[in-house]
């Protein structure tokens, strides 16, 4: 009679697959980003007047904003969940997603500055005041001001329950007002920004039909890769805070 192999022989394999099932997206993020950086710098891109090679910034700059929006939306969802259940964990999630989102926003500004330096400033002779009035820059500035205020508000509380509740309220309110502004302002102010009404594409949002297929090959993986990286950083911060506050959470 054949005997089945003992369970413990399989155990390491089984545990490994659990780890893989839990962490596959981190590996995916890493692979996508390696592809983004190598492919982003080496693959062929359309040659356009003024833009030239700066078009590669699409793989970095635009992805920062997309990552930022995803992180802010996640933060608001956790704020709503907090107000529904009053579970302190949700507040830790909301604040850390907001923090990493703000970091991505600042990176978006930095990558945008480098890009604008070679296109708007040197080739089109735009003044700084003109550049900062771009609707997309205004939208981004409002978002960063809102989350800056969110952290100032959080810092002014000593009671953690009160802090969680009031900052959740502000997070939801400010975010709900952010969307109309992203939608309205481009229609009030002219724009030079690629993918804006002033430019040829005719859509204030990013025009997805307008992207060259060569760019698309790297752009979509890049968006996913950077966003996953943002989520990964947030989860690390969240785990740290959950560990630090474990007495509050379980006591």
């Amino acid at each position: 009679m054949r005997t089945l192999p003992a369970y413990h022989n399989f155990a390491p394999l089984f545990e490994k697959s659990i780890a893989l099932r839990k962490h596959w997206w981190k590996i995916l993020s890493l692979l996508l980003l390696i592809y983004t950086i190598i492919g982003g710098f080496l693959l062929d891109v359309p040659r356009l007047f003024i833009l030239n090679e700066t078009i590669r910034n699409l793989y970095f700059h635009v992805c920062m904003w997309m990552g930022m929006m995803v992180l802010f939306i996640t933060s608001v969802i956790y704020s709503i969940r907090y107000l529904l259940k009053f579970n302190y964990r949700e507040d830790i999630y909301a604040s850390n997603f907001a923090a990493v989102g703000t970091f991505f926003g600042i990176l978006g500004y930095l990558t945008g500055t480098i890009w604008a330096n070679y296109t708007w400033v040197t080739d089109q002779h735009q003044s700084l005041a003109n550049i900062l009035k771009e609707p997309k820059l205004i939208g981004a500035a409002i978002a960063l001001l809102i989350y800056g205020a969110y952290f100032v508000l959080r810092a002014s509380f000593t009671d953690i329950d009160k802090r969680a509740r009031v900052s959740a309220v502000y997070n939801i309110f400010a975010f709900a007002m952010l969307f109309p502004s992203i939608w309205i302002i481009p229609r009030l102010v002219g724009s030079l920004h690629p993918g804006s009404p002033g430019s040829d594409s005719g859509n204030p949002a990013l025009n997805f039909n307008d992207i060259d297929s060569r760019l698309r090959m790297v752009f979509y993986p890049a968006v996913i890769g950077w966003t996953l990286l943002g989520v990964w950083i947030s989860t690390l911060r969240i785990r740290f805070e959950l560990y630090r506050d474990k007495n509050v959470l379980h006591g």
Partner: protein
Amino acid sequence: MQKIATLVKKDILLELRQKHSFYGVILYIAATVYVLYLSFPAAPEPNTWNSLFWVIQLFVCINTVAKSFLSESRGRMLYFYSISSPVDFIIAKLIYNVILMVIMSLISLILFFVFLENPVNDSLKFTGIVLLGGFSISLVFTLMSAIAAKAQQNAALIAILGFPVILPQLMLLMRLSRAAFGEVFREGAVLQLCGLVMLLNLAVGALAFILFPYLWKD
């Protein structure tokens, strides 16, 4: 409905009895406009005038609305908590602040006309836009004041919290007021912009009803 009316009446009565804060805000407007008057060698250009007016409106609103929650003591809030619902309470506060802000807007408009001349072509239209603006700004700042009051903070926090949120509406209002400065708009565009501002006000109101109950309980 009756409760809301009573709460509004209570706020107005308090205001009438403690006149110092009301006159304080008026003096604040007068002093600000006078400083502007002295700091401009000649009357400002229409566009500058417009921008100055709306920025001053923002600060006036912070000063007008700030005390609506900060002045309520802990004990009195507890009393309101026991006699009325949060929705009634926030509606009453919103109505009261809108009334107050509309009065203050008109006063600052008159002072602007007196001191900084009147570059507006259509004064009646501009007055209408100012009333609409006062209405919108006071709604947002009422809610911000409720949040800042929870943080035991002063008016500075209201400004930090409120400015990024009010920006889109303020830009709409500044754009809209150019209609009164003689700029020709596309047919129906003025009404469309007014509609947009009202829509945003509706959104602020709805959010206030949903979110205020969470701020209220301690």
